[in-house]
């Protein structure tokens, strides 16, 4: 409980106001309350201030009973899914990821096998120099000897 020195409360109107308010609330320390009661007994203006403050509190008291319209908790809970669904969606994505990856992997393997078969078939038809493995992998039909025979530094004809 904060104590308000009576001299400071006397000179500073905001502190005096605070002291009067706490007097009405019953939250002054016993010594402070006794001191203020003695002051009130001899100061008519202070008594008036106290009465006015008391009446002001009573006047605005009805505003303390403000409530939201009925069904407020339901409205709050309905609003929550927009905060919770992000994590639910993320969870669903993580669960779906392995299955999606599996499907893509199977399709990729099938495509690769298909391309390999096509390359092998073309190689056999054309009777190329490269081995069957090189043909399946799609490597060009050029042997090392042929590649080394190319003169890469040969100047272009004008």
């Amino acid at each position, binding site marked *: 409980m904060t104590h308000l020195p009576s001299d400071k409360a006397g000179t500073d109107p905001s502190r005096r106001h605070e002291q009067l308010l706490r007097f009405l609330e019953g*939250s002054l320390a016993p010594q402070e309350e006794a001191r203020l009661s003695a002051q009130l007994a001899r100061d008519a203006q202070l008594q008036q201030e106290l*009465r006015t403050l008391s009446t002001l509190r009573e006047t605005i008291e*009805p505003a303390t009973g403000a409530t939201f319209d009925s069904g407020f908790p339901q409205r709050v809970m309905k609003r929550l899914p927009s905060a919770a669904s992000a994590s639910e969606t993320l969870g669903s994505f993580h669960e779906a990821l392995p299955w999606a990856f599996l499907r893509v992997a199977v399709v990729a393997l099938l495509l690769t096998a298909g391309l390999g078969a096509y390359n092998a078939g073309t190689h056999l038809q054309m009777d190329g120099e490269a081995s069957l493995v090189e043909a399946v992998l799609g490597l060009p039909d050029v042997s090392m000897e042929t590649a080394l025979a190319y003169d890469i530094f040969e100047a272009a004809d004008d």
Partner: protein
Amino acid sequence: MPSSDSVEGTPATGTSDEELLRRVRAGNRHAFRQLVERYEDRVAATIIGMLGPGADADDAGQETFVRLFERVDQFRGESTLGTYLTRIAINQALQVLRKRKRWTRRFFSREAHADELPHPTGDARDDLEREERKQLTYRALQALSEDHRSVVVLRLLQGYSTKETAEILDIPEGTVMSRLYRASNQLKEQLAPLLAPDTP
């Protein structure tokens, strides 16, 4: 009205805030709903005090709890859950106020709004129903600046101490006192016909 930190969050019957938060962190949304029901009124008092009743306040209230849900792992219990929620609620309300100011300055300025406040005549105090008095209070609050309004809502309407108000708003206690003093004077002017006839 908030009580001391040692008893807040532990209802007479039921589960403590700490246990509910633990369950929320484990994915239990029913536990979160219990927290919403437990703190709905406190958040409402803060938000509606700042914004007045309406769709904006309801939306800001919902967003307050959504923010808590999103940050539940970050809440470490340095303050009570009620204080933490109030802090979020104040920030949500201030965001709405700033948005209003940017787009509808002409119609929601403090000066324009203050002009619209009715001036009840002599017998208003006897004649006005509680609901009308509440509406007048809201409108008087809307006439305050954001800074003054927030201290009035927390200190006067919700009963937080000056120290707690300072912690929630992250301002010195002296600033809370001076803002509250100026805000009270302004409220006394706005609500003068409702106050005691011999109000100075």
